[in-house]
Protein backbone atom coordinates (compact mmCIF):
# COMPACT_ATOMS: atom_id res chain seq x y z
CA UNK A 1 0.00 0.00 0.00
CA UNK A 2 1.36 3.42 -0.93
CA UNK A 3 1.36 6.26 1.55
CA UNK A 4 -1.02 8.10 -0.77
CA UNK A 5 -3.50 5.21 -0.43
CA UNK A 6 -3.14 5.20 3.35
CA UNK A 7 -3.24 8.95 3.87
CA UNK A 8 -5.96 9.83 1.39
CA UNK A 9 -6.51 13.52 0.70
CA UNK A 10 -9.73 13.52 2.70
CA UNK A 11 -7.77 12.30 5.76
CA UNK A 12 -5.14 15.03 5.46
CA UNK A 13 -7.89 17.61 4.96
CA UNK A 14 -9.73 16.55 8.11
CA UNK A 15 -6.46 16.32 10.04
CA UNK A 16 -6.06 20.05 9.54
CA UNK A 17 -9.77 20.93 9.54
CA UNK A 18 -10.81 19.16 12.77
CA UNK A 19 -14.56 19.60 12.24
CA UNK A 20 -16.53 20.41 15.39
CA UNK A 21 -13.43 20.57 17.58
CA UNK A 22 -13.35 22.63 20.77
CA UNK A 23 -15.45 21.50 23.71
CA UNK A 24 -18.91 23.11 23.83
CA UNK A 25 -21.89 23.46 26.18
CA UNK A 26 -24.38 21.96 26.68
CA UNK A 27 -23.45 18.28 26.87
CA UNK A 28 -24.91 15.16 28.40
CA UNK A 29 -21.64 13.34 28.97
CA UNK A 30 -17.91 13.90 28.64
CA UNK A 31 -15.31 11.14 28.34
CA UNK A 32 -11.53 11.04 28.13
CA UNK A 33 -9.97 8.26 26.07
CA UNK A 34 -6.27 7.53 25.57
CA UNK A 35 -4.08 5.14 23.66
CA UNK A 36 -1.48 4.41 26.37
CA UNK A 37 1.05 3.03 23.89
CA UNK A 38 1.21 6.17 21.76
CA UNK A 39 -0.12 8.97 23.93
CA UNK A 40 -3.04 9.87 21.65
CA UNK A 41 -5.83 11.45 23.70
CA UNK A 42 -9.31 12.78 23.12
CA UNK A 43 -11.72 14.46 25.51
CA UNK A 44 -15.13 14.24 23.88
CA UNK A 45 -18.59 15.56 24.73
CA UNK A 46 -21.92 14.36 23.42
CA UNK A 47 -25.21 16.22 23.63
CA UNK A 48 -28.36 14.22 22.97
CA UNK A 49 -31.86 15.63 22.46
CA UNK A 50 -35.11 14.04 21.27
CA UNK A 51 -33.38 10.77 20.50
CA UNK A 52 -30.82 12.44 18.25
CA UNK A 53 -27.16 13.43 18.48
CA UNK A 54 -27.46 17.20 18.79
CA UNK A 55 -23.73 17.89 19.15
CA UNK A 56 -20.33 16.24 19.40
CA UNK A 57 -17.40 18.40 20.50
CA UNK A 58 -13.88 17.45 21.47
CA UNK A 59 -10.27 18.35 22.13
CA UNK A 60 -7.64 15.90 21.08
CA UNK A 61 -4.00 15.35 20.44
CA UNK A 62 -2.78 12.60 18.19
CA UNK A 63 -1.73 11.42 14.80
CA UNK A 64 -3.35 12.29 11.48
CA UNK A 65 -5.32 9.05 11.52
CA UNK A 66 -6.86 9.57 14.97
CA UNK A 67 -7.55 13.28 14.47
CA UNK A 68 -9.04 12.92 11.00
CA UNK A 69 -11.14 9.95 12.09
CA UNK A 70 -12.62 11.91 14.99
CA UNK A 71 -13.32 14.86 12.70
CA UNK A 72 -15.07 12.71 10.07
CA UNK A 73 -16.97 10.83 12.78
CA UNK A 74 -18.38 14.07 14.18
CA UNK A 75 -19.54 15.14 10.71
CA UNK A 76 -21.27 11.80 10.22
CA UNK A 77 -23.08 11.41 13.55
CA UNK A 78 -24.25 14.95 14.37
CA UNK A 79 -27.95 15.22 13.60
CA UNK A 80 -28.44 11.44 13.35
CA UNK A 81 -30.84 9.44 15.51
CA UNK A 82 -28.81 7.90 18.37
CA UNK A 83 -29.54 4.35 17.20
CA UNK A 84 -28.30 5.14 13.68
CA UNK A 85 -25.17 6.83 15.02
CA UNK A 86 -24.34 3.78 17.15
CA UNK A 87 -24.92 1.56 14.11
CA UNK A 88 -22.42 3.70 12.21
CA UNK A 89 -19.93 3.06 15.01
CA UNK A 90 -20.47 -0.67 14.61
CA UNK A 91 -20.06 -0.42 10.83
CA UNK A 92 -16.81 1.49 11.23
CA UNK A 93 -15.55 -0.96 13.86
CA UNK A 94 -16.30 -3.84 11.47
CA UNK A 95 -14.38 -2.05 8.72
CA UNK A 96 -11.39 -1.54 11.02
CA UNK A 97 -11.40 -5.19 12.06
CA UNK A 98 -11.61 -6.41 8.46
CA UNK A 99 -7.82 -6.45 7.88
CA UNK A 100 -8.37 -4.80 4.50
CA UNK A 101 -10.75 -7.50 3.29
CA UNK A 102 -13.95 -5.49 3.51
CA UNK A 103 -15.43 -3.36 0.72
CA UNK A 104 -16.86 -0.45 2.68
CA UNK A 105 -20.18 1.03 1.59
CA UNK A 106 -19.68 4.72 0.94
CA UNK A 107 -23.45 5.30 1.10
CA UNK A 108 -23.34 4.18 4.73
CA UNK A 109 -19.92 5.31 5.98
CA UNK A 110 -19.40 8.41 3.83
CA UNK A 111 -15.91 9.88 4.14
CA UNK A 112 -15.03 7.26 6.76
CA UNK A 113 -14.43 4.77 3.92
CA UNK A 114 -11.09 6.57 3.44
CA UNK A 115 -9.76 4.60 6.42
CA UNK A 116 -9.97 1.27 4.60
CA UNK A 117 -6.17 1.30 4.22
CA UNK A 118 -5.72 1.68 7.97
CA UNK A 119 -7.48 -1.64 8.53
CA UNK A 120 -4.44 -3.35 6.99
CA UNK A 121 -2.16 -1.89 9.65
CA UNK A 122 -2.90 -3.49 13.04
CA UNK A 123 -0.77 -0.91 14.87
CA UNK A 124 -2.86 1.96 13.53
CA UNK A 125 -6.38 0.54 13.88
CA UNK A 126 -6.64 1.81 17.43
CA UNK A 127 -5.75 5.32 16.20
CA UNK A 128 -8.72 5.31 13.81
CA UNK A 129 -11.02 3.95 16.52
CA UNK A 130 -10.08 6.39 19.31
CA UNK A 131 -12.71 9.06 18.55
CA UNK A 132 -15.40 6.53 17.62
CA UNK A 133 -14.91 4.59 20.86
CA UNK A 134 -15.08 7.82 22.84
CA UNK A 135 -18.28 8.76 21.00
CA UNK A 136 -19.93 5.42 21.78
CA UNK A 137 -18.87 5.59 25.42
CA UNK A 138 -20.11 9.18 25.83
CA UNK A 139 -23.38 8.42 24.04
CA UNK A 140 -24.14 5.41 26.23
CA UNK A 141 -23.38 7.48 29.34
CA UNK A 142 -25.52 10.36 28.15
CA UNK A 143 -28.35 7.92 27.39
CA UNK A 144 -28.05 6.46 30.88
CA UNK A 145 -28.17 9.97 32.35
CA UNK A 146 -31.33 10.75 30.38
CA UNK A 147 -32.97 7.55 31.59
CA UNK A 148 -32.39 8.40 35.24
Amino acid sequence: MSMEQLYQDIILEHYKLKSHSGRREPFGAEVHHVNPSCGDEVTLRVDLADGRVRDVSYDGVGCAISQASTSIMSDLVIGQPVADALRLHDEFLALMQSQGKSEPDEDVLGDAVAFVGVSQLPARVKCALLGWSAFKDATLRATAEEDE
Partner: protein
Amino acid sequence: MTVTDETEVSMALDVAAVRSDFPILTRDVAGVPLAYLDSANTSQKPRAVVDAISDHLLRHNANVARAMHTLGAEATGAFEAARAKVAAFVGAARPEEIVFTKNASEALNLAAHTLGAGLRPGDEIVVSVMEHHSNIVPWQLLAQRTGATLRWFDITAEGRLDLDRARAEGLVNERTRIVSLTWVSNVLGTVNPVARIAGWAHAVGATMVVDGSQGVPHLPTSVAELGADLLAFTGHKMLGPTGIGALWGRYELLASLPPFLGGGEMIEVVRMDGSTYAPPPHRFEAGTPPIAEAVGLGAAVDYLTALGMDAVAAHEREITEHLLTGLSQTPGVRLLGPADLDDRGGAVSFTLTTADGFEVHPHDVMQLLDSRGVAVRGGHHCARPLHDRLGIATSTRASSHAYTTTAEVDRLLDALAYTRDFFGGAR
Protein backbone atom coordinates in the same frame (compact mmCIF):
# COMPACT_ATOMS: atom_id res chain seq x y z
CA MET B 1 53.78 5.01 12.45
CA THR B 2 53.67 6.46 15.93
CA VAL B 3 52.16 4.77 18.93
CA THR B 4 49.26 7.24 18.84
CA ASP B 5 48.47 6.30 15.25
CA GLU B 6 48.46 2.62 16.05
CA THR B 7 46.05 3.24 18.89
CA GLU B 8 43.74 5.13 16.56
CA VAL B 9 43.87 2.40 13.94
CA SER B 10 43.07 -0.30 16.46
CA MET B 11 40.25 1.85 17.89
CA ALA B 12 38.43 2.25 14.59
CA LEU B 13 35.45 0.01 14.06
CA ASP B 14 35.14 -1.91 10.78
CA VAL B 15 31.43 -1.27 10.33
CA ALA B 16 31.10 -3.49 7.27
CA ALA B 17 32.60 -6.40 9.21
CA VAL B 18 30.33 -5.69 12.18
CA ARG B 19 27.27 -5.58 9.92
CA SER B 20 28.11 -8.93 8.41
CA ASP B 21 27.57 -10.43 11.88
CA PHE B 22 23.95 -9.20 11.92
CA PRO B 23 21.90 -11.08 9.28
CA ILE B 24 18.79 -8.97 9.97
CA LEU B 25 20.56 -5.88 8.59
CA THR B 26 20.57 -7.41 5.10
CA ARG B 27 16.79 -7.77 4.88
CA ASP B 28 14.36 -5.57 3.00
CA VAL B 29 11.45 -3.62 4.42
CA ALA B 30 8.82 -2.22 2.06
CA GLY B 31 10.95 -3.38 -0.87
CA VAL B 32 14.02 -1.40 0.15
CA PRO B 33 16.97 -2.27 2.42
CA LEU B 34 16.24 -1.82 6.12
CA ALA B 35 17.79 1.21 7.84
CA TYR B 36 17.45 0.29 11.52
CA LEU B 37 17.64 3.41 13.67
CA ASP B 38 15.78 2.13 16.72
CA SER B 39 18.57 0.58 18.77
CA ALA B 40 17.70 2.57 21.91
CA ASN B 41 14.43 0.66 21.82
CA THR B 42 16.11 -2.68 21.30
CA SER B 43 19.39 -3.53 19.59
CA GLN B 44 19.84 -6.15 16.91
CA LYS B 45 21.63 -9.41 17.76
CA PRO B 46 24.84 -10.74 16.21
CA ARG B 47 24.95 -14.36 15.04
CA ALA B 48 27.35 -15.18 17.92
CA VAL B 49 24.63 -14.41 20.47
CA VAL B 50 21.98 -16.46 18.70
CA ASP B 51 24.46 -19.34 18.25
CA ALA B 52 25.38 -19.28 21.95
CA ILE B 53 21.72 -19.50 22.99
CA SER B 54 21.03 -22.21 20.43
CA ASP B 55 24.11 -24.23 21.44
CA HIS B 56 23.19 -23.98 25.10
CA LEU B 57 19.61 -25.15 24.58
CA LEU B 58 20.53 -27.90 22.12
CA ARG B 59 23.58 -29.29 23.95
CA HIS B 60 23.82 -28.18 27.58
CA ASN B 61 20.28 -27.57 28.77
CA ALA B 62 19.45 -28.39 32.39
CA ASN B 63 18.30 -26.47 35.42
CA VAL B 64 20.92 -24.57 37.37
CA ALA B 65 22.20 -24.91 40.93
CA ARG B 66 20.17 -28.02 41.80
CA ALA B 67 20.57 -30.56 39.00
CA MET B 68 23.55 -32.68 40.09
CA HIS B 69 24.13 -34.49 36.81
CA THR B 70 26.62 -33.54 34.09
CA LEU B 71 24.22 -31.33 32.16
CA GLY B 72 23.24 -29.58 35.38
CA ALA B 73 26.87 -28.81 36.09
CA GLU B 74 27.35 -27.52 32.53
CA ALA B 75 24.26 -25.31 32.70
CA THR B 76 25.27 -23.96 36.11
CA GLY B 77 28.78 -23.36 34.84
CA ALA B 78 27.49 -21.49 31.77
CA PHE B 79 25.07 -19.41 33.85
CA GLU B 80 27.71 -18.42 36.40
CA ALA B 81 30.28 -17.79 33.67
CA ALA B 82 27.82 -15.35 32.08
CA ARG B 83 27.52 -13.62 35.45
CA ALA B 84 31.31 -13.27 35.63
CA LYS B 85 31.45 -11.84 32.09
CA VAL B 86 28.78 -9.25 32.85
CA ALA B 87 30.52 -8.38 36.12
CA ALA B 88 33.83 -7.82 34.33
CA PHE B 89 32.06 -5.78 31.63
CA VAL B 90 30.87 -3.17 34.15
CA GLY B 91 33.99 -3.32 36.31
CA ALA B 92 32.36 -5.07 39.27
CA ALA B 93 34.64 -6.13 42.12
CA ARG B 94 33.32 -9.71 41.99
CA PRO B 95 30.75 -11.78 40.04
CA GLU B 96 28.47 -11.98 43.11
CA GLU B 97 27.75 -8.29 42.65
CA ILE B 98 25.63 -9.08 39.56
CA VAL B 99 22.00 -10.04 40.18
CA PHE B 100 20.25 -11.35 37.08
CA THR B 101 16.75 -9.99 36.51
CA LYS B 102 14.45 -10.18 33.53
CA ASN B 103 15.10 -6.57 32.47
CA ALA B 104 16.09 -3.12 33.79
CA SER B 105 12.56 -2.44 35.02
CA GLU B 106 12.70 -5.50 37.26
CA ALA B 107 16.15 -4.45 38.44
CA LEU B 108 14.83 -1.02 39.42
CA ASN B 109 11.78 -2.55 41.12
CA LEU B 110 14.14 -4.84 43.03
CA ALA B 111 16.12 -1.79 44.13
CA ALA B 112 12.99 0.12 45.16
CA HIS B 113 11.55 -2.80 47.14
CA THR B 114 14.70 -3.74 49.00
CA LEU B 115 16.16 -0.27 49.59
CA GLY B 116 12.73 1.01 50.49
CA ALA B 117 12.06 -1.54 53.21
CA GLY B 118 13.09 0.90 55.92
CA LEU B 119 11.68 4.15 54.53
CA ARG B 120 9.37 6.26 56.68
CA PRO B 121 7.21 9.36 56.25
CA GLY B 122 9.49 12.37 55.97
CA ASP B 123 12.16 10.46 54.07
CA GLU B 124 12.81 11.68 50.54
CA ILE B 125 13.51 9.91 47.25
CA VAL B 126 15.01 11.96 44.42
CA VAL B 127 14.68 11.18 40.69
CA SER B 128 14.66 13.48 37.64
CA VAL B 129 12.01 14.65 35.21
CA MET B 130 13.95 13.04 32.34
CA GLU B 131 13.58 9.49 33.68
CA HIS B 132 12.06 6.54 31.83
CA HIS B 133 8.79 5.42 33.45
CA SER B 134 10.66 2.43 34.86
CA ASN B 135 12.73 4.79 37.01
CA ILE B 136 9.70 6.80 38.14
CA VAL B 137 6.82 4.43 38.82
CA PRO B 138 8.68 2.01 41.19
CA TRP B 139 9.65 5.03 43.32
CA GLN B 140 6.11 6.45 43.20
CA LEU B 141 4.82 3.09 44.41
CA LEU B 142 7.49 3.03 47.13
CA ALA B 143 6.52 6.54 48.24
CA GLN B 144 2.87 5.47 48.40
CA ARG B 145 3.72 2.38 50.46
CA THR B 146 5.94 4.15 52.97
CA GLY B 147 4.73 7.75 53.10
CA ALA B 148 8.10 8.96 51.82
CA THR B 149 8.18 11.98 49.48
CA LEU B 150 9.23 11.78 45.84
CA ARG B 151 11.15 14.79 44.53
CA TRP B 152 12.89 15.37 41.21
CA PHE B 153 15.57 17.26 39.33
CA ASP B 154 14.28 19.64 36.68
CA ILE B 155 16.13 20.17 33.36
CA THR B 156 17.62 23.24 31.70
CA ALA B 157 16.54 24.58 28.31
CA GLU B 158 19.40 22.61 26.77
CA GLY B 159 18.08 19.37 28.23
CA ARG B 160 20.60 18.87 31.01
CA LEU B 161 19.96 18.38 34.72
CA ASP B 162 19.34 21.76 36.35
CA LEU B 163 21.99 21.48 39.06
CA ASP B 164 21.78 25.16 40.05
CA ARG B 165 18.09 24.91 40.76
CA ALA B 166 18.58 21.63 42.61
CA ARG B 167 21.20 23.28 44.82
CA ALA B 168 19.00 26.33 45.42
CA GLU B 169 16.07 24.10 46.38
CA GLY B 170 18.18 21.88 48.59
CA LEU B 171 16.92 18.95 46.55
CA VAL B 172 19.42 16.52 48.02
CA ASN B 173 19.44 17.03 51.79
CA GLU B 174 19.62 15.22 55.12
CA ARG B 175 16.13 13.72 54.54
CA THR B 176 17.21 12.16 51.22
CA ARG B 177 17.48 8.36 51.48
CA ILE B 178 17.68 7.40 47.80
CA VAL B 179 18.75 9.21 44.62
CA SER B 180 17.91 7.37 41.38
CA LEU B 181 19.03 8.85 38.08
CA THR B 182 19.46 7.76 34.52
CA TRP B 183 23.05 7.71 33.30
CA VAL B 184 22.04 8.56 29.70
CA SER B 185 18.59 9.92 28.80
CA ASN B 186 16.67 7.66 26.41
CA VAL B 187 15.03 10.73 24.84
CA LEU B 188 17.41 13.69 25.11
CA GLY B 189 20.63 11.70 24.85
CA THR B 190 22.02 13.70 27.77
CA VAL B 191 24.84 12.01 29.70
CA ASN B 192 24.22 12.99 33.31
CA PRO B 193 27.04 13.83 35.77
CA VAL B 194 26.25 10.72 37.78
CA ALA B 195 29.51 10.67 39.76
CA ARG B 196 28.93 14.25 40.87
CA ILE B 197 25.35 13.59 41.99
CA ALA B 198 26.53 10.39 43.69
CA GLY B 199 28.86 12.64 45.68
CA TRP B 200 25.88 14.74 46.78
CA ALA B 201 23.93 11.60 47.70
CA HIS B 202 26.76 10.02 49.65
CA ALA B 203 27.46 13.26 51.51
CA VAL B 204 24.00 13.00 53.10
CA GLY B 205 24.12 9.23 53.55
CA ALA B 206 21.76 8.43 50.68
CA THR B 207 22.06 5.48 48.30
CA MET B 208 22.80 6.23 44.64
CA VAL B 209 20.86 4.16 42.12
CA VAL B 210 21.70 4.52 38.43
CA ASP B 211 19.57 3.47 35.46
CA GLY B 212 22.24 2.37 33.00
CA SER B 213 19.86 1.09 30.31
CA GLN B 214 21.12 3.59 27.72
CA GLY B 215 24.66 3.87 29.09
CA VAL B 216 26.06 0.37 29.59
CA PRO B 217 25.28 -0.75 26.00
CA HIS B 218 27.12 2.21 24.46
CA LEU B 219 29.87 3.48 26.76
CA PRO B 220 32.81 1.89 28.58
CA THR B 221 31.40 1.21 32.05
CA SER B 222 33.16 1.35 35.38
CA VAL B 223 30.83 1.17 38.37
CA ALA B 224 33.60 2.65 40.52
CA GLU B 225 33.94 5.70 38.28
CA LEU B 226 30.16 6.12 38.11
CA GLY B 227 30.06 6.30 41.89
CA ALA B 228 26.85 4.26 41.93
CA ASP B 229 25.73 1.93 44.70
CA LEU B 230 23.29 0.10 42.42
CA LEU B 231 23.26 0.04 38.59
CA ALA B 232 20.38 -1.36 36.55
CA PHE B 233 20.70 -2.35 32.89
CA THR B 234 19.14 -4.69 30.36
CA GLY B 235 20.49 -7.28 27.95
CA HIS B 236 18.38 -6.64 24.88
CA LYS B 237 19.74 -3.13 24.35
CA MET B 238 23.34 -4.41 24.38
CA LEU B 239 23.10 -6.96 21.55
CA GLY B 240 21.79 -9.64 23.93
CA PRO B 241 18.40 -11.32 24.03
CA THR B 242 15.23 -10.09 25.73
CA GLY B 243 14.28 -11.55 29.10
CA ILE B 244 17.59 -10.91 30.84
CA GLY B 245 18.74 -7.82 32.70
CA ALA B 246 20.95 -7.13 35.66
CA LEU B 247 21.29 -5.16 38.84
CA TRP B 248 24.87 -4.54 39.88
CA GLY B 249 25.32 -3.61 43.53
CA ARG B 250 28.21 -3.08 45.92
CA TYR B 251 28.46 -6.43 47.67
CA GLU B 252 28.18 -5.05 51.21
CA LEU B 253 25.06 -3.13 50.19
CA LEU B 254 23.48 -6.18 48.53
CA ALA B 255 24.31 -8.26 51.59
CA SER B 256 22.47 -5.75 53.80
CA LEU B 257 19.27 -5.81 51.73
CA PRO B 258 16.23 -8.01 52.39
CA PRO B 259 14.93 -10.45 49.75
CA PHE B 260 12.72 -9.23 46.92
CA LEU B 261 10.76 -12.18 45.49
CA GLY B 262 10.46 -15.37 47.53
CA GLY B 263 10.80 -18.90 46.18
CA GLY B 264 13.28 -21.51 45.15
CA GLU B 265 16.96 -20.66 44.72
CA MET B 266 16.87 -17.64 47.05
CA ILE B 267 16.74 -19.58 50.32
CA GLU B 268 19.22 -21.08 52.75
CA VAL B 269 16.94 -23.11 55.06
CA VAL B 270 13.15 -23.16 54.85
CA ARG B 271 11.08 -24.26 57.84
CA MET B 272 7.36 -23.76 58.28
CA ASP B 273 8.01 -21.30 61.11
CA GLY B 274 10.49 -19.21 59.15
CA SER B 275 13.29 -19.23 56.60
CA THR B 276 16.78 -17.92 56.13
CA TYR B 277 18.03 -16.56 52.86
CA ALA B 278 20.92 -17.19 50.53
CA PRO B 279 23.68 -14.59 50.26
CA PRO B 280 23.75 -12.28 47.21
CA PRO B 281 23.25 -12.64 44.33
CA HIS B 282 21.03 -15.72 44.72
CA ARG B 283 18.99 -14.08 47.49
CA PHE B 284 17.46 -11.92 44.75
CA GLU B 285 17.00 -14.63 42.11
CA ALA B 286 13.93 -16.59 43.16
CA GLY B 287 12.89 -19.42 40.86
CA THR B 288 14.52 -20.84 37.77
CA PRO B 289 16.32 -17.93 36.14
CA PRO B 290 16.51 -17.12 32.41
CA ILE B 291 19.47 -19.44 31.83
CA ALA B 292 19.82 -19.48 28.04
CA GLU B 293 19.19 -15.72 28.03
CA ALA B 294 22.04 -15.21 30.50
CA VAL B 295 24.29 -17.29 28.26
CA GLY B 296 23.22 -15.09 25.34
CA LEU B 297 24.01 -11.95 27.31
CA GLY B 298 27.43 -13.40 28.14
CA ALA B 299 28.05 -13.89 24.41
CA ALA B 300 26.90 -10.31 23.73
CA VAL B 301 29.35 -9.02 26.32
CA ASP B 302 32.12 -11.08 24.69
CA TYR B 303 31.18 -9.61 21.30
CA LEU B 304 31.19 -6.02 22.59
CA THR B 305 34.45 -6.58 24.45
CA ALA B 306 36.06 -7.92 21.27
CA LEU B 307 34.93 -4.78 19.39
CA GLY B 308 36.15 -2.67 22.28
CA MET B 309 33.72 -0.34 24.04
CA ASP B 310 36.00 2.62 23.33
CA ALA B 311 35.67 1.85 19.62
CA VAL B 312 31.90 1.37 19.92
CA ALA B 313 31.56 4.71 21.73
CA ALA B 314 33.80 6.49 19.18
CA HIS B 315 31.77 5.05 16.30
CA GLU B 316 28.46 6.08 17.82
CA ARG B 317 29.85 9.53 18.44
CA GLU B 318 30.59 9.83 14.74
CA ILE B 319 27.08 8.68 13.83
CA THR B 320 25.53 11.05 16.37
CA GLU B 321 27.54 13.97 15.02
CA HIS B 322 26.37 13.18 11.48
CA LEU B 323 22.79 12.93 12.71
CA LEU B 324 22.89 16.16 14.73
CA THR B 325 24.43 18.08 11.83
CA GLY B 326 21.94 16.66 9.33
CA LEU B 327 18.92 17.36 11.52
CA SER B 328 20.06 20.91 12.22
CA GLN B 329 20.15 21.49 8.45
CA THR B 330 16.69 19.99 7.83
CA PRO B 331 13.98 22.68 7.79
CA GLY B 332 11.08 21.86 10.09
CA VAL B 333 13.11 19.79 12.54
CA ARG B 334 13.26 20.88 16.18
CA LEU B 335 15.90 19.00 18.12
CA LEU B 336 15.23 17.99 21.74
CA GLY B 337 18.26 17.70 23.98
CA PRO B 338 21.84 18.87 23.61
CA ALA B 339 22.86 19.95 20.10
CA ASP B 340 26.57 19.36 20.71
CA LEU B 341 28.49 16.17 21.37
CA ASP B 342 29.67 17.04 24.89
CA ASP B 343 28.29 14.55 27.38
CA ARG B 344 25.86 13.29 24.79
CA GLY B 345 24.73 9.78 23.93
CA GLY B 346 23.34 8.43 20.68
CA ALA B 347 19.58 8.82 21.22
CA VAL B 348 18.41 11.83 19.22
CA SER B 349 14.78 12.99 19.48
CA PHE B 350 13.05 15.69 17.51
CA THR B 351 9.75 17.05 16.24
CA LEU B 352 8.88 17.75 12.59
CA THR B 353 6.78 20.67 11.35
CA THR B 354 5.52 21.26 7.81
CA ALA B 355 6.09 24.47 5.85
CA ASP B 356 2.46 25.45 6.56
CA GLY B 357 3.10 25.15 10.30
CA PHE B 358 1.57 21.74 11.03
CA GLU B 359 3.41 19.51 13.46
CA VAL B 360 3.53 16.05 11.98
CA HIS B 361 2.65 13.49 14.62
CA PRO B 362 5.49 11.01 15.31
CA HIS B 363 3.29 8.05 14.44
CA ASP B 364 2.73 9.54 11.03
CA VAL B 365 6.44 10.28 10.72
CA MET B 366 7.18 6.69 11.68
CA GLN B 367 4.67 5.36 9.14
CA LEU B 368 6.17 7.32 6.26
CA LEU B 369 9.74 6.46 7.27
CA ASP B 370 8.75 2.80 7.52
CA SER B 371 7.39 2.96 3.97
CA ARG B 372 10.97 3.88 2.99
CA GLY B 373 12.57 1.16 5.08
CA VAL B 374 13.69 3.48 7.89
CA ALA B 375 12.84 2.22 11.39
CA VAL B 376 12.64 4.82 14.19
CA ARG B 377 10.51 5.18 17.30
CA GLY B 378 7.68 7.67 17.68
CA GLY B 379 5.74 8.42 20.84
CA HIS B 380 6.60 9.46 24.37
CA HIS B 381 9.35 6.81 24.66
CA CYS B 382 8.09 5.85 28.14
CA ALA B 383 9.06 9.35 29.31
CA ARG B 384 5.78 11.21 29.42
CA PRO B 385 6.74 13.57 32.28
CA LEU B 386 9.72 14.73 30.23
CA HIS B 387 7.51 15.42 27.21
CA ASP B 388 5.05 17.31 29.44
CA ARG B 389 8.00 19.33 30.74
CA LEU B 390 9.06 20.12 27.16
CA GLY B 391 5.48 21.18 26.34
CA ILE B 392 4.99 18.51 23.68
CA ALA B 393 2.97 15.30 23.62
CA THR B 394 5.37 13.08 21.72
CA SER B 395 8.52 13.03 19.62
CA THR B 396 10.37 10.96 17.04
CA ARG B 397 13.66 9.31 18.00
CA ALA B 398 16.56 7.95 15.97
CA SER B 399 19.24 5.92 17.72
CA SER B 400 22.31 3.95 16.78
CA HIS B 401 24.65 1.13 17.76
CA ALA B 402 27.91 -0.33 16.57
CA TYR B 403 26.38 -1.44 13.25
CA THR B 404 24.82 1.91 12.27
CA THR B 405 26.16 3.72 9.19
CA THR B 406 26.14 7.37 8.12
CA ALA B 407 24.39 6.19 4.92
CA GLU B 408 21.47 5.03 7.08
CA VAL B 409 21.38 8.45 8.72
CA ASP B 410 21.30 10.06 5.26
CA ARG B 411 18.32 7.90 4.33
CA LEU B 412 16.56 9.09 7.48
CA LEU B 413 17.24 12.72 6.58
CA ASP B 414 15.90 12.24 3.03
CA ALA B 415 12.81 10.48 4.32
CA LEU B 416 12.18 13.27 6.85
CA ALA B 417 12.18 15.90 4.08
CA TYR B 418 9.75 13.71 2.10
CA THR B 419 7.50 13.31 5.17
CA ARG B 420 7.49 17.02 5.92
CA ASP B 421 6.48 17.86 2.34
CA PHE B 422 3.93 15.02 2.17
CA PHE B 423 2.00 16.43 5.12
CA GLY B 424 2.66 20.01 4.05
CA GLY B 425 0.57 19.56 0.92
CA ALA B 426 3.57 19.26 -1.43
CA ARG B 427 3.12 15.60 -2.30
